[in-house]
């Protein structure tokens, strides 16, 4: 720290401190915003594949963003992605557990049965699109829908490994960090997921 010749000069510095901390905060916020903007859509689709319902997917993505910014934003930015996906996967699992409990409770109650997996489905999704101009797009959408169905049928850990490695493009170490398991487990889950998906979708897919 600098020495001051007079008490007055010390007071002047005290009254007008250097702006470095505020600048550091701005830089850190900008970096965090860039990270979230880059990841949010893929994270939403990952959550939607697992949960089906877009509103539930939005909720878990928002929760993951809040938890990351509140609890882990001070960590090095290289750690944000695996941390974010670990929070997201925990949120997905919590929501799936709550759904299971709700289903069991609803089964005991009288009245019309509620299936939360089906309630959010748009009836227009099942209507065939007769427009001849977009057959390629339609085929791609159908292929993706088949893939999503097959992914939902996988064990949770296999689905997580496949989506993080293949969709999000994480390497084995990052995926292991996100899934809180060993790299060997990631390789096993991923390999099993690929074989199971290929078996379910068939050779023509």
């Amino acid at each position, binding site marked *: 720290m600098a020495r001051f010749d007079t008490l007055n000069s010390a007071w002047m510095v005290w009254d007008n401190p250097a702006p470095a901390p505020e600048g550091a905060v701005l830089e850190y916020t900008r970096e965090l915003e860039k990270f979230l903007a880059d990841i949010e859509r893929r994270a939403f*689709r990952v959550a939607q594949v697992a949960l089906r319902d*877009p509103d539930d997917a*939005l909720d878990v*993505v928002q929760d993951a*963003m*809040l938890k990351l910014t509140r609890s882990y934003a001070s960590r090095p930015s290289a750690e944000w992605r695996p941390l974010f996906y670990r929070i997201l996967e925990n949120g997905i699992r919590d929501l799936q557990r709550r759904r299971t409990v709700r289903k069991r409770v609803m089964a005991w109650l009288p009245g019309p049965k509620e299936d939360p997996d089906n309630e959010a489905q748009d009836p227009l999704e099942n209507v065939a699109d007769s427009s001849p101009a977009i057959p390629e797009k339609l085929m791609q959408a159908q292929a*993706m829908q088949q893939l999503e169905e097959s992914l939902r049928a996988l064990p949770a850990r296999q689905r997580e490994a496949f989506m993080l490695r*293949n*969709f999000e493009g994480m390497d084995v170490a990052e995926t292991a960090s996100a899934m809180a398991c060993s790299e060997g487990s990631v390789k096993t889950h991923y390999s099993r997921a690929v074989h199971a*998906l290929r078996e379910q979708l068939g050779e023509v897919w």
Partner: protein
Amino acid sequence: MGERDNEAFEVRSRALFHDSVDGLDMRIRSRLTQARSAALAAAHLRRPWHFGWKVWTPAAGVTAAAILGAALWINSPISHQSAVLADQSSLEDLDLVAASDEGSADAMEMLQDDIDFYAFADKAANSGPAA
């Protein structure tokens, strides 16, 4: 199912996923932007402690001012002067008490008169019925 087939499958599934991400509708995109803004606002409200310098500044200021004030007071000539003055005033008090001028001699005589009076009154009270 060979390795090459697996690779083709992985490439295709990745491409389909990224197409589906690009095709997200405006409602979802807008809600994701809102969620991001809310998360960043929360991060601003709850920064790591080392960024909260504004919180610590007043407390640090008061402490530094107190330390500076104490240091200056101990080393300043005023504190030495006041200590000398304090010594001087206590000596003066002793002088006043020990002074033996005319006024103080009168006061001692008055005190002696009072003692004589109280001795007389005590004797009178114990000597029988009042006159």
